[in-house]
């Protein structure tokens, strides 16, 4: 792969007439098996490639991409990028591409994940289905493995290369009136345990049978790690410095201020072996080891190269992973401190309601339990929340042990206890 990439990069850089040229090449392979109703329903393998070229004449910029790897097609994509750049109006925020950079060491690739095939996925799923069927439950889920090779180069001499793998097994166990869900994610498929993951889903499905409808209002909540990661992604991707400085953000005027409980620390670290991520960003700038919120204080917003230069602030770039440090409390410990609350497995369909106060809405899913006076008393039908994340961050009272989760941004977060979280409506199941 490296030879193909180096050749393509050489063709791009030697054929470009631009003042500046950037090229990235990504080759990805993916295997994905889905199951539902106790059977495999979809099963697919794919291999894709993309070469993207960005050319600038002064600050007039154009981009083009192709998945054709022959020399003629690569030269053609350079020509298209040049034509666009020449026809474009200036991008006043354009900066010439960065020179060579140093990156954090990350270990994100497993040969075993790369070699994990359709029969391996099917055997794991068969075992999971058998476990669910033996308990009279219906199972559904997916087992996905992937590998990506990424190369970046530019006319300023930057060269970057990264290889990563991903594996994710997720299962939902379903009874006529309940469901339970669990997932396991790691770059190394040998650390995925479909059996123990399925066991958790089964336990939740059984425990959440005969759910009761309760009044939608504010409750104490214990959010399990998957729920925390879902909310955390909305919080962390709202932390753009430019938007804040332009008055369009919930974090406007809050840099350096306390915005959450002392228990809230959100950070990124691409080199954390428990949750490694790509060591560079799309333009080749290094992904940072950085605190966003430390002990409740908003320490950094994210600064693009342009905004960092304009404001004199150090460059941070976007977060490539989401880490929340926990106190190490167990779920049981947290439950024991709850007087009138809910234990929530995960959320579904979270969206912004009002961005300036970071108000989100969403539904609970696959296991909600009523907790009273320190113990679980029954399961609960799903409810809709409407809650400001600024308030939620301030109301964090306890945190658990970090767990790898997060489908869309690699996340390592604990369960958390929040003293007040508002639910506004109910549903039928």
């Amino acid at each position, binding site marked *: 792969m490296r030879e193909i990439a180096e050749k393509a990069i050489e063709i791009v850089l030697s054929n470009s007439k631009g003042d500046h040229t950037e090229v990235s090449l990504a080759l990805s392979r993916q295997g994905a098996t889905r199951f539902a109703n106790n059977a495999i329903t979809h099963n697919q393998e794919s291999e894709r490639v993309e070469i993207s070229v960005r050319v600038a004449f002064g600050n007039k910029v154009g981009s083009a991409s192709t998945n054709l790897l022959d020399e003629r097609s690569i030269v053609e994509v350079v020509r298209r990028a040049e034509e666009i750049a020449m026809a474009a*109006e200036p991008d006043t925020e354009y900066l010439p591409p960065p020179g060579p950079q140093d990156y954090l060491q990350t270990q994100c690739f497993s040969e075993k994940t790369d070699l994990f095939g359709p029969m391996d996925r099917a055997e794991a799923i068969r075992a999971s289905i058998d476990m669910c069927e033996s308990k009279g439950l219906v199972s559904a889920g997916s087992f996905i493995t992937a590998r990506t090779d990424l190369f970046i180069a530019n006319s300023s001499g930057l060269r970057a290369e990264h290889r990563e793998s991903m594996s994710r097994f997720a299962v939902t166990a379903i009874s006529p009136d309940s469901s339970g869900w669990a997932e396991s994610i790691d770059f190394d498929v040998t650390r995925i345990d479909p059996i123990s993951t399925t066991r958790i889903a089964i336990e939740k499905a059984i425990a959440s049978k005969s759910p009761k409808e309760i009044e939608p209002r504010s409750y104490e909540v214990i959010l399990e790690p998957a729920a925390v990661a879902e909310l955390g992604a909305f919080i962390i991707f709202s932390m753009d410095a430019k938007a804040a400085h332009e008055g369009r953000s919930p974090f406007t005027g809050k840099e350096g201020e306390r915005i959450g409980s002392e228990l809230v620390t959100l950070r990124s670290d691409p080199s954390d072996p428990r949750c490694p991520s790509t060591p560079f960003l799309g333009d080749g700038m290094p992904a940072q080891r950085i605190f966003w919120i430390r002990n409740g204080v908003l320490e950094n917003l994210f600064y693009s190269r342009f905004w960092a230069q304009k404001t004199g602030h150090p460059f941070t770039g976007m977060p490539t992973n989401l880490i929340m440090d926990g106190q190490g409390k167990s779920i049981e410990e947290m439950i024991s401190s709850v007087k009138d609350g809910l234990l929530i497995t995960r959320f579904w369909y979270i969206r912004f*309601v009002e961005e300036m106060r970071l108000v989100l809405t969403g539904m609970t899913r696959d296991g909600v339990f009523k907790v009273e006076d320190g113990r679980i008393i029954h399961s609960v039908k799903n409810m*809709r929340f409407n809650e400001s994340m600024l308030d939620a961050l301030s109301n964090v009272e306890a945190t658990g042990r970090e767990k790898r989760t997060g489908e869309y941004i690699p996340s390592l977060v604990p369960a958390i206890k929040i003293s007040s979280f508002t639910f506004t*409506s109910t549903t039928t199941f």
Partner: protein
Amino acid sequence: MKDLARMAVELAVGLGASYADARIVSYRSQRITTEDMRVSGISDSEDMGIGIRVIVDGAWGFSSTYRLEREAVESTVRRAIEVAKASGLAKRKPVSLVDEPPKDIRFVSPFRIDPFSIGIEQKVGLLLQVNEILLKHKGIKKATGYMFFGKEHRIIATSDGSILESEVLTSATGYTATAVREGDAKTRTYSPPPRTAGYEVVLDSDLLGNADRVAEQAMEKVMAPECEPGIKDLILDPLNLALTIHESVGHATELDRALGMEESLAGRSFATPDLLGKLRYGSEIVNFVADNTLPGGLATKGFDDDGVEGQRWFIVKDGIFSGYSTSREVAGEIGLKRSTGCCRADHWSSIPIVRQPNLSLMPGEEPLSLDDLISDTDDGIYIEGMGSFSIDQIRVNFQFGGDAFWEIKKGKRTRMLKNVIYQARTTDFWNSCDAICDERFWVPNGVLSCGKGDPMQISQMTHGAAPARFRRINVIRGS
């Protein structure tokens, strides 16, 4: 390319597939974005590959590659067979497809002006002009705009003997103004309906002519009072309804969901097959028609990836739940002899799944204008455009916002409001519909980024509607 597709199918059948199809698709797309009088991005991409789907011993297999040399395609066919054999390890019953007569057809979406023949300068110039108009308004702190053009060329060969070809153009444009004032920021968006058509989508949209209105309404919105929560009558415009239809009717009536096949991500549906023909989904004036022949519809592609031609059918007729969107695989599960033709993949590397058709709320039969409807409403809110949206995974409890809100008092549209959110259960909501404007006010809007599947696929479809009124809906304050 047709020969390559045929070769792949023949090889698959020779290797033991009881069914096979090969789909060779090429894409060309162009996206232009502007922000505050600068060009924030222009990209032009092309992409091409083949996806091969097989049934072996009653189980699905799928493999795909960007390499279109004969040897690579042969190896991809063999991989698809291997994948299908692995699927057989966890098979409940053999996959069975309902019949579809073989055909040899070519479909080209009509267009007046090829968007790729229009220079970048012209497109950028127009978007920057819009930026400039928006930013001239005091209080508008941000202006963004975009254009998107896509061309999809598709060849499908099936072991049923079909050979199909399509070429579909999609065009979209729009812009947003953000007003900032006294610690608040609010946006107003202009979203002309995207269509399977050419650059005429941009020319017909009057981007410049709407810019002053959009900027003024953004300013009015940021200064508007918040709504008082309570039970209100709502009048929803076609663009707001498009999303409500999409989430609470379109997804709920996908048969794969109703059969539990989407549980692992998108979820299931309350609208199960036992309710077909019985469930009162909406009031008697509510009719939802699926139509994959709708001119300009984003799901109008001639035929789906099962090779089934576009059709028109009722999803809800006179308020009664009447039909599903299906693939050839799931149609037989409820006794249909033919699929409704809704099986689509978002890319050559994705396996086709059941996707929403173009699905529309039909206009009222009696003459009724938006002004008539407002005049006839005592205490309500008129909502335009799309905003916040969320629905539970069986499509019962939903909550929507909008892009602009006006109070209605004693038959008059009075002042703008902000942070309006409405919340309901699906069938309660559609049963509360007591008036729909007539066909003069019917507008087909498009959804460009519908997510479904695991791994997630993104699809497009159109939802038409005329303004409609919904009685006694729970309105909350979204702040």
